[in-house]
């Protein structure tokens, strides 16, 4: 329905389901502190095997399939990680760590990557996982006939071949330092060579027993699961609960042990319910107001700066995200990213500066912002607040309400000033490539700077951390100074769990997709 193309899968889409996220508090540290029971116990106790774990997730549809090429939303992605593994996993700091690959190494120019596979891992059908299986699984998402959501960002791979029983070599079209991130994507699950992807034969912690699309999935523990300290419950039942109220009441009544996507508006009520814990994870997801840099009056940077200085970010985080989020600084790199430019001054609400830039721009008259709640939760309210902020700088903002239906096809990237959201990407490269590069498919601000593109390609091939950081810092500065995106806020993910389960590992860019193998019961 009102789904934004490209926010989720595909094109660097590691990860984030394309639906909008409801966010919550703050930095990594704060989130851990908010769920002491859950996280604390994960370290304090030795988990026990057993129990029937029930998850209630949104993002399910009657048209879902087990084929990872079709995954677009949370439900199917979570089921994917029940039966399958990737070569690479992301840890709590969003750094790639070994999963089915034991180690990997890049050539000096980052154009050839060699992945060494873990030995002795077997598929659910008893066959051992070897290099040809990996080649088969990766190629499923490539080639002209592929309909996979991962096709776009796997285009970087020129050739993938088995160079040993336990060794796979990737030759890239253009050098990329981020290949391990790409291979951690939920689409690229490894299956035995020649198997049907819809049969979901993997190396994962659970074996799918029954899969009713849009209703329910039942999986039994894989007795031969290779990963230490994962896959505790005897069985996992995943219920499709797209309706927020249904999810919440199911958690409150104990019908499920874990739910995703809480509503910031009601989360404080839920926190008071007995037996329920709220988990708050910072995300790379952000809400934006987008100006088309190729359309007057937004082609004038003074006008863009006026609109950037004229927004009260704190108030938006407070009122729209109810505090479950962080203020943004008009570039899309989240504060927990290793390449986050920490020396860039944080833009604040300054009506005088806004007024100054507006006068410099020479533009007079009202500005129209086209918006619908499809853009992000509370978008219309946010626009009304924004209009009040700008009024103090003497700028008249007219909020034009658009219908939710068709917003992403008729308004977004069509009208010159609109609301939008991004689920975020695990790396700066993927985020910039998908929405900031001149020829990016979703360059929603139509901001085209060849200097920026050059830096982006240079940074992608750079393996040295410090040098790479310099490049990304420069790019963030360019977007901050000149770009067409007003990014007032980053949202957080909110999950709910019963107090008798623990072990959830909050990874900022993953929407809890690997929760099935992490949770265990504390009352066994």
């Amino acid at each position, binding site marked *: 329905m009102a789904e934004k193309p490209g926010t989720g899968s595909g094109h660097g889409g590691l990860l984030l389901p394309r639906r909008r996220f409801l966010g919550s508090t703050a930095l990594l540290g704060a989130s851990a502190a908010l769920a002491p029971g859950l996280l604390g116990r994960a370290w304090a106790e030795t988990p026990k095997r057993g129990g029937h774990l029930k998850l209630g997730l949104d993002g399910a549809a009657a*048209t879902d399939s087990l084929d990872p090429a079709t995954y677009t939303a949370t439900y199917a992605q979570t089921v994917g990680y029940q039966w399958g593994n990737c070569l690479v996993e992301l840890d709590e700091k969003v750094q790639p760590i070994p999963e089915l690959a034991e180690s990997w190494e890049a050539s000096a120019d980052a154009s050839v990557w060699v992945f060494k596979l873990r030995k002795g891992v077997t598929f659910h059908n008893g066959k051992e996982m070897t290099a040809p299986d990996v080649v088969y699984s990766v190629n499923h998402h490539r080639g002209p006939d592929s309909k996979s*959501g991962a096709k776009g960002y796997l285009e970087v791979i020129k050739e993938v071949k088995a160079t040993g029983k336990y060794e796979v070599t990737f030759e890239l079209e253009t050098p990329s330092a981020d290949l391990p991130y790409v291979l951690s994507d939920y689409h690229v699950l490894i299956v035995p060579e020649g198997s049907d992807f819809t049969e979901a034969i993997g190396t994962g912690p659970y074996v799918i027993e029954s899969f009713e699309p849009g209703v*329910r999935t039942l999986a039994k523990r894989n007795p031969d699961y290779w990963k230490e300290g994962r896959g505790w419950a005897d069985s996992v039942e995943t219920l499709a609960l797209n309706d927020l109220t249904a999810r919440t009441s199911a958690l409150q*009544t104990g019908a499920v042990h874990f739910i995703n996507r809480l509503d910031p508006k009601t989360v404080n009520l839920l926190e008071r319910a007995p037996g329920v814990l709220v988990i708050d994870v910072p995300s790379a997801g952000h809400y934006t107001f987008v100006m088309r840099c190729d359309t007057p009056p937004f082609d004038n940077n003074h006008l863009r700066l006026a609109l950037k200085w004229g927004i009260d970010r704190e108030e938006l985080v407070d009122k729209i995200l109810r505090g479950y989020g962080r203020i943004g600084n008009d570039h899309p790199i989240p504060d927990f990213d290793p390449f986050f430019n920490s020396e860039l001054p944080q833009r604040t609400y300054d009506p005088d500066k806004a007024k100054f830039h507006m006068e410099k721009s020479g533009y007079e008259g009202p500005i129209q912002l086209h918006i619908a709640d499809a853009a992000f939760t509370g978008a219309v309210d946010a626009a009304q607040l924004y209009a009040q902020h700008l009024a103090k700088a003497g700028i008249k903002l007219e909020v034009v309400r658009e219908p939710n*239906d068709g917003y992403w096809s008729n308004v977004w990237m069509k009208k010159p000033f609109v609301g939008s959201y991004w689920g975020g990407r695990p790396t700066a490269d993927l985020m910039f490539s998908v929405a900031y590069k001149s020829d990016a*498919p979703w360059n929603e601000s139509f901001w085209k700077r060849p200097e920026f593109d050059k830096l982006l390609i240079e940074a992608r091939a750079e393996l040295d951390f410090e040098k790479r950081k310099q490049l990304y810092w420069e790019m963030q500065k360019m977007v901050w100074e000149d770009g067409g995106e007003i990014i007032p806020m980053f949202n957080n993910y909110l999950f709910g769990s019963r107090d008798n389960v623990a072990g959830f590992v909050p990874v900022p860019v993953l929407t809890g997709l690997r929760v099935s193998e992490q949770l265990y019961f504390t009352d066994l």
Partner: protein
Amino acid sequence: MHPLVKLVAQRLALGAGTLLVVSALIFAGTEILPGDVAQAILGQSATPEAVAAIREDLGLDRPAWIRYLDWLSGFLRGDLGTSLANRVPIGEMIAGRLENTLFLAGVAAAFAVPVAITLGIVAARYRETWLDKAISIVTLSAISMPEFFIGYILIFVFAVKLFWVPSIASVFPGMSFADRLYAVTLPVATLSLVVIAHMMRMTRAAIVNVMASPYIETAELKGLTRARITLRHALPNALSPIINVVVINLAYLVVGVVVVEVVFVYPGMGQLMVDAVAKRDVPVVQATGIIFAATYVLLNLTADVLAILANPRIRHAR
């Protein structure tokens, strides 16, 4: 030809005509939905070329009326088409869902109809007393609230506060009948609260109406008991309108469950339809729409025929 057979045939023809009109309306309605199917299928990989290829692939580039005739003829042959989103035959997709919806409607009817008629009879028998008023106030209050509101109140009280019943009606193949019944407790209660008032009021009104007839007076003067008069003499003559309203409510139980299914996450046709609309899976929307319409038309037809059978005056219409 027996006049009754003729009448049924006439009604059937009329029903078929209605369905044809409805099918055209459904087709037109889905045609003007905003958003593009090809784009919905392709999602993020929607380049203009790919969209054009898919449109051609699905025959969406042909004029609407040709696609309508195509769809209609397929439908008449029992071919519901295939889902655009995952290419599964729609018949397969719908079978289990329809079964679930009919199960829910069946359980709700098995509970609500006897309760409503009994309440109606009791209310008529003791009309204008506090009992009659209490029954009316309670049932009419229930029908005055929107279904989702009743549903949420029931969830809050009986699932969240008292833990008596599950808040979500999760059913799946292989579940025992008793488990199934337990799972659908709240949806059945919600549906019942919505339909009871209508049937109850009609039963009461019909009986009260008949009770005013001279022959009831005769029966009274003959010395029959109130209960006997009500059940043996008044009820049979009041049956026709009661049957009518009962069957119309049965139709509502099947086609009106969309909201209830969504609130309780019940895997029925309504939920499937909502899913399909969200995915712009037009053939599924059309198929579910036409099935709902057919159910409605058929049950209305049944209501007419039963009403005729129950009423000799209509049966022998001159």
